[in-house]
């Protein structure tokens, strides 16, 4: 008899405890987002594809087309071309294209970059319908970001008049 009463009371109490848990969740803020209308903010360590850091001084990228990233990349993802800019002795990137479908997100390109020009983007909507959708033009992305920030847009550097020697490197020796 006492065991029955004890069981009943303990059982009833456990039911109330369960109700307490759910009502606490009921008043908690919602964690789901309405996806196409709202986007998640990714955590700072999230690794998307790489993109250029916008240098606060120049309002543009820091890439000098040294191609260290293209050579380091184990999957031959990166193609960089650069020119010597007129008036200075420095090279500057003209195109910087990723073939993201090959990327394994190892991050060696970011680590090896001597000018710290690269970072991981927080882009996570990377699905596409064809392989062409996976080709990411990092310069175009930089221009879009500059537009969004109200900065002057990146313009292709003027090559040195005389020896406009464009070095093209398809990262590593490619297709073999």
């Amino acid at each position, binding site marked *: 008899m006492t065991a*029955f009463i004890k069981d*009943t009371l303990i059982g009833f109490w456990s*039911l109330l405890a*369960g*109700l307490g*848990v*759910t*009502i606490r*969740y*009921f*008043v*908690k*803020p*919602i*964690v*789901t987002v*309405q996806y196409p209308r709202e986007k998640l903010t990714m955590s700072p360590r999230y690794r998307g594809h790489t993109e250029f850091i916008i240098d606060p001084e120049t309002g543009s990228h820091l890439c000098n087309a040294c191609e260290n990233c293209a050579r380091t990349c184990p999957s031959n993802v990166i193609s960089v071309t650069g020119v010597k800019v007129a008036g200075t002795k420095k090279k500057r990137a003209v195109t910087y294209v990723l073939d993201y479908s090959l990327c394994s997100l190892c991050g060696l390109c970011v680590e090896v970059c001597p000018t710290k020009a690269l970072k991981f983007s927080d882009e996570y909507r990377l699905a596409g319908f064809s392989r062409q959708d996976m080709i990411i033009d990092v310069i175009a992305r930089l221009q879009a970001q500059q537009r969004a920030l109200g900065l002057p847009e990146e313009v292709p550097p003027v090559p040195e008049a005389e020896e406009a020697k464009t070095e093209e490197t398809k990262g590593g020796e490619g297709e073999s």
Partner: protein
Amino acid sequence: MQFLLAEGARIGISLIGVIGLVSINALFLIWMERKVSAHIQLRPGPMEVGFHGALQTIADALKLIGKELITPEDADKLIYLLAPIVMFLPVLVSFIVIPFSPTLLIRDLNVGILLIFAFSTMAVLAILMAGWSSNNKYSLLGAIRSVAQTIAYEIPLLITAMSVIIMVGSLKLTDIVAYQATVWNVLFQPLAFILFIICGTAETNRAPFDIPEAESELVAGFHTEYSGMRFAIFFLAEYTNMFIVSAVATVLFLGGWRGPILPPLVWFLLKVYAIIFLMMWFRWTFPRLRFDQLITLGWKILIPLSLANLILTALAIKIF
């Protein structure tokens, strides 16, 4: 002649009012259930159709109307067709006696509460008809479970209602409301209120007592084979049943339409929907009982407790 006309008008207006209430109530409750479940699971729930998904149920209902009505090949056709109607009609009848406010009630019958209990039990017959005639093992299993669990919750349900009725000394719902002019019955009968809510949840076949439908075991239980509007009628009846059980609980224990400041009808609906919220809260908290657990709960806990409560009430009335 004039009497007939007046009665005809009364019946017509009542019927239209009740069907309107039933439909709007079901539309609202389905939306509310989805919202409650969503918020308990930290989701927003339906958000796309209308303001915060308010028109979602209407969209779903339109879709259901457009669906094909399937009758299984070897079904017992007549019973198969009748089952949704048998499910739905008793639900309508119960509205005759529910006092929404001092003036807003259809008929103040002497047998009020008895009428509601008598007709709400017919839902079990409808479930059995649906399960039997579908010629489907899952439907039949659901129907058998439903019939077997009936006694486990109907007896304590009636006994708890009885302990209120012997306090009041009347089966009339208006008398029961009148009795609670100063103090609500729930203060005299807290145990009966708890038992009534538990049995009422079982009466509406809702989780954790949704053994007849048991989605994860029996597909959809007794209405597995139903589609389109026939399924929608089962759904409608389920949600209307919730409303009726909550309305009866409000009348028996929470003082019916009584309450300060706000108009009586608003108070009545507030209390009813508060109890419905409680039932939804149960559903999204407790897992489904196993069948023997339900029978144990019914026979070993609910019935003894309700009997003890009835005897105590009777003694108290005799002494004071």
